């Protein structure tokens, strides 16, 4: 067996890093959004839900275009980057993280919201009648009951970020070790006729996708059985 060609591991590592950081950020900001969407009676709730779901429908290039304006030197991202002496957030790893968070948000918020909705009001009401403050009730009742939703959201958010291409191309470019993630690397290998390298990465992605979807199905099956 021949050794794996060089230049393959760096994009893989970078992609995993990006997806992991994105997933953690999305769980942190997605949970309160999902909670609010599941429980609020505000009339403009669905408008917010729509906004969150937009990345599902928008072409990644459109998303990428606006992100580029936002992150570029003349947008708020540029101003933010100025804080540490950089000129722009575009074409940086940090910029990619922000882009990925926007791009993958529906995949994390939706399953968590569904889990909160499926749970109903009753467990929180029962907790409240047992002297649990809303905060305690959330951590001891709502969060454990919504665990399958968190799991699904995390897996989907991670996987979707790994598969990101259009947005990366628009705001990330192709800087090795900084923004050259898997999907871009495959594209790059094909462009330069490095078919062997491209096929290894592509096959890896196929296996990855299979494992992810299988994992999702197993989670759902377990949930159905335990009845949480």
């Amino acid at each position: 067996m021949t050794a794996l060609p060089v230049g393959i591991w760096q994009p893989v590592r970078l992609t995993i890093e990006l997806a992991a950081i994105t997933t953690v950020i999305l769980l942190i900001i997605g949970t309160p959004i999902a909670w609010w969407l599941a429980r609020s009676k505000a009339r403009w709730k669905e408008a917010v839900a729509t906004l969150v779901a937009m990345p599902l429908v928008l072409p990644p290039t459109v998303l990428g275009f606006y992100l580029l304006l936002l992150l570029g030197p003349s947008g708020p991202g540029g101003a933010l980057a100025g804080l540490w002496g950089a000129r722009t957030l575009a074409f940086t790893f940090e910029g990619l993280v922000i882009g990925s968070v926007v791009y993958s948000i529906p995949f994390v918020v939706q399953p968590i919201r569904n889990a909160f909705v499926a749970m109903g009001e009753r467990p929180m009401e029962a907790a409240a009648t047992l002297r649990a403050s809303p905060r305690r009730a959330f951590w001891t009742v709502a969060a454990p009951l919504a665990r399958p939703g968190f799991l699904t959201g995390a897996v989907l958010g991670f996987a979707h970020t790994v598969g990101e291409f259009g947005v990366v191309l628009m705001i990330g470019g192709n800087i090795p070790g900084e923004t050259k993630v898997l999907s871009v690397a495959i594209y790059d290998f094909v462009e330069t006729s490095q078919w062997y390298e491209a096929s290894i990465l592509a096959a890896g992605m196929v296996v990855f996708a299979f494992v992810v979807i299988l994992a999702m199905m197993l989670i759902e099956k377990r949930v159905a059985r335990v009845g949480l």
Partner: protein
Amino acid sequence: MTEASAKSITAAFRGMLGKFALDASFSVPATGVTGLFGPSGCGKTTVLRCIAGLQRLDGFCAIDGDVWQDGDAFRPPHVRPIGYVFQEASLFPHLSVRRNLLYGAPRGKEPTQSDAIAFDEVLDLLGLTSLVERAPQNLSGGERQRVAIGRALLSQPKLLLMDEPLSALDRLTKDEILPFLERLHERMSLPVIYVTHDMSEIERLADHLVLMRAGSVIGAGPLSALPAYGILTVRVDGGRLLAPSTQARPGERRRLRIAASDVSLASTPPQGSTILNVLPARIVSHTASGPHEITVVLTLGHDHAGQRLLARITRRSWEQLGFADGAPVYAQVKGVSLARK
């Protein structure tokens, strides 16, 4: 304006609920069991939820002189010293029975004899000792509801609110739980508000009654004063009957009149019936009264000592349901009237 007095439960709520207006107020002593009775959809569950603070309508609510809601002041449910038993047990499925029971207990620990309601006492009272290490999923409906009652008690409430705790259960399970509730009532001094649309539960458990209809309270008072609302509880040998009347005093001996044609029989306890009076009975004898009808002599209760009652049923029912002399049956009494003095 309503005022809060010590040793009483005062509640007054007003608001729109979907299409109907709720405007209910009552004051009952903060002792014993108060039945909140009325037909389905009359707003009694809403009133209970408002007392718990789970729902907010305009109004006033005070228990034992402690004001929970008045004008803009509204104490959220988790700082009201209540226990709440929902229609469905609503146990936390991710926690064991023990951790469910202790969820609301002070400091999350087993309350000891120094607490008002001790852990062992509750296990014993509700027959939960063998269940504590199980998961809620592995309990029967009746067991779950008993755990839910125990969980509410162990949060050391000053007021126990029960929202039709038996209505989601079948007749057999109900009969299994009612004795526990009666024991609870006997052994604990905790005031209870018990919502139900089942008069037989009121009869067995309640000391006071609040009668609701279409969003308003149409009467409140001790159970013995029920005639004021047009329903009378009459004790007969072998059971109790409800009769519509305003012409009687508690303790008075009266003659009841029940037409044989107003009595029907069932081999199993009837479910979801609008008939208030369903009594277990035993067939003593039967005689044919005409080619198609049979007159049955019953004795109320399952021993043979109860009051005699006549029922007229069709021969067809007699044969189809396989009745025989000596068989236990359920007598449904459609009409009861008090004989004039």
